[in-house]
């Protein structure tokens, strides 16, 4: 496997509708993500961060600018696990393997391996509705990893989980990111979560959605959510956010 290049977004814009009724969801987004980097996109609702992620996943096309994925396969996780309810846990992961062209005789071992990676070994035959929200997201993560993608897009995947489960999943995603040398683009509206996870935090502002700044986190890994350094970094970031917010609202 040749090492893929950086992910590059150049002047990416997105408009919905035409003429006077058109809304501009994104304007002039410039972003470069290095291979193996963990980037958090931080912003309040409606700033276009999910739109940006959808375009990277190929679910939507930009109206201007270009997206260069550097020849990568892309996997994506959503706020809801979106497991297929008619399939078992194993069936959900197997479908991802099938659609990625993995031969059928390899599925059993791959499913067991992926489930142990997300610490759900032995749950193959469970149905999605029998699992807790956190377990469902773990299965969704295993399903995303099954695609052997090197760019993992995560759209607020832990936003609807309780804090304890979320902390545990932060630890997991950091460990898996290191072990598998993934490139991750993680969307969140939670400042501490962005600082906990990201190498770099990219701030977005709404109306129209655009990149308003970025910070290198620069804390050693593995990190812990209750590390005071994270709280300090998050507080500093939030101050900068608040300083920018009135200007942004005035421009809207």
């Amino acid at each position, binding site marked *: 496997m040749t090492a893929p290049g950086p992910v590059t977004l150049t002047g990416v814009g997105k408009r919905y509708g035409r003429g006077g009724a058109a809304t501009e969801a994104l304007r002039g987004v410039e972003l470069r993500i290095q291979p193996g980097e963990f980037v958090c996109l931080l912003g309040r609702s409606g700033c276009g961060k999910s739109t940006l992620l959808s375009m990277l*996943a190929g679910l939507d096309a930009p109206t201007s600018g270009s997206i260069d994925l550097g020849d990568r396969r892309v996997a994506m996780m959503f706020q809801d696990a979106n497991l297929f309810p*008619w399939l078992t846990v194993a069936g959900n992961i197997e*479908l991802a393997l*099938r*659609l*990625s062209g993995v031969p059928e005789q390899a599925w059993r071992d791959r499913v067991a391996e992926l489930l142990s990676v997300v610490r759900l070994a032995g749950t193959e035959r469970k149905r999605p509705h*029998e699992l807790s929200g956190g377990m469902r997201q773990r299965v969704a993560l295993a399903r995303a990893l099954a*695609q052997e993608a090197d760019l993992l897009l995560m759209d607020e995947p832990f936003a609807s989980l309780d804090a304890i489960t979320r902390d545990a999943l932060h630890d997991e995603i950091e460990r898996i990111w290191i072990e598998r040398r993934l490139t991750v683009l993680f969307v969140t509206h939670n400042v501490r979560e962005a600082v906990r996870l990201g190498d770099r935090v990219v701030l977005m502002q709404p109306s129209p959605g655009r990149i308003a700044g970025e910070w290198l986190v620069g804390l050693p890994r593995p990190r812990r959510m209750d590390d005071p350094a994270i709280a300090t970094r998050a507080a500093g970031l939030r101050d900068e956010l608040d300083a920018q917010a009135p200007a942004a609202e005035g421009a809207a």
Partner: protein
Amino acid sequence: MTTALSRRLLRGRVAGLRIRESGPPAGPAARLARRVWPPLLAVGLVLLVWETLVLVGWKPAYVLPAPATVAGELVTLLASPDFWTAITITMVRALVGFAVSLAIGTVLGIAVSRWGLLRNALGALLTGLQTMPSIAWFPLAILFFGISEQAILFVIVLGAAPSIANGLISGVDDVPPQLLRTAHVLGARGLGLYRWVVLPAALPAYLSGLKQGWAFAWRSLMAGELLVIIASRPSLGAQLSFFRELSNAPGLLATMVVILVIGMAVDGGFSTIAKRVRSRRGLGAARL
């Protein structure tokens, strides 16, 4: 007879009440009883009203026989090979008609749900066909095919296929968009998307369509067998017609009971499958 009946009825009612009061943590036997008693009670009530009407002499006995007389006739009928020949011919017609409807309805449903042009062309027509009383097709069917099996099949398919197609179409339309987005990210496209995501997601609605399709097929078949009586082919519908001509009310009612029971049994089969499918997905009443 009447007192025995009302005694049974009274027991049923008391047992039903007691079970309900015992609350949710009942054992499997009590749960079964709770499911069995209400329909038995309803049947008992119908029999009671029927028996009362007979006793007050609302209609002469040769028009409205007592339940016991009909039950006796039913036993006689079920013991006669000719009656079983009639049931067999009717059931084969129903199965063939339903199978053809299933094939046509499914292909039509997939095609209409997939291509916008077809939907614009056929969508309203399919719904329209569903509202068309099947008996209204028979004059045309007889003109086309004469007094023949094809005439009956034609009307069954026209009755059942639109329901099956519509069930599938509404199932496909209601696939949650987030599942489609997930499938797209997983790499499902075109036929694969249909095979692995859209059709499985549409299965519960498809099953409802099949159930409704069966009801339409069964009704159309009975209408057909009354109108299209083929000399060498006895059937349940033909039996009804003969019993009326012979003024054999017990035979007529006994045959109707058989028609009702067959229709309900097949419908119950579809319901059981649908319930199982839904509960496996964490849907439906089984959750409560």
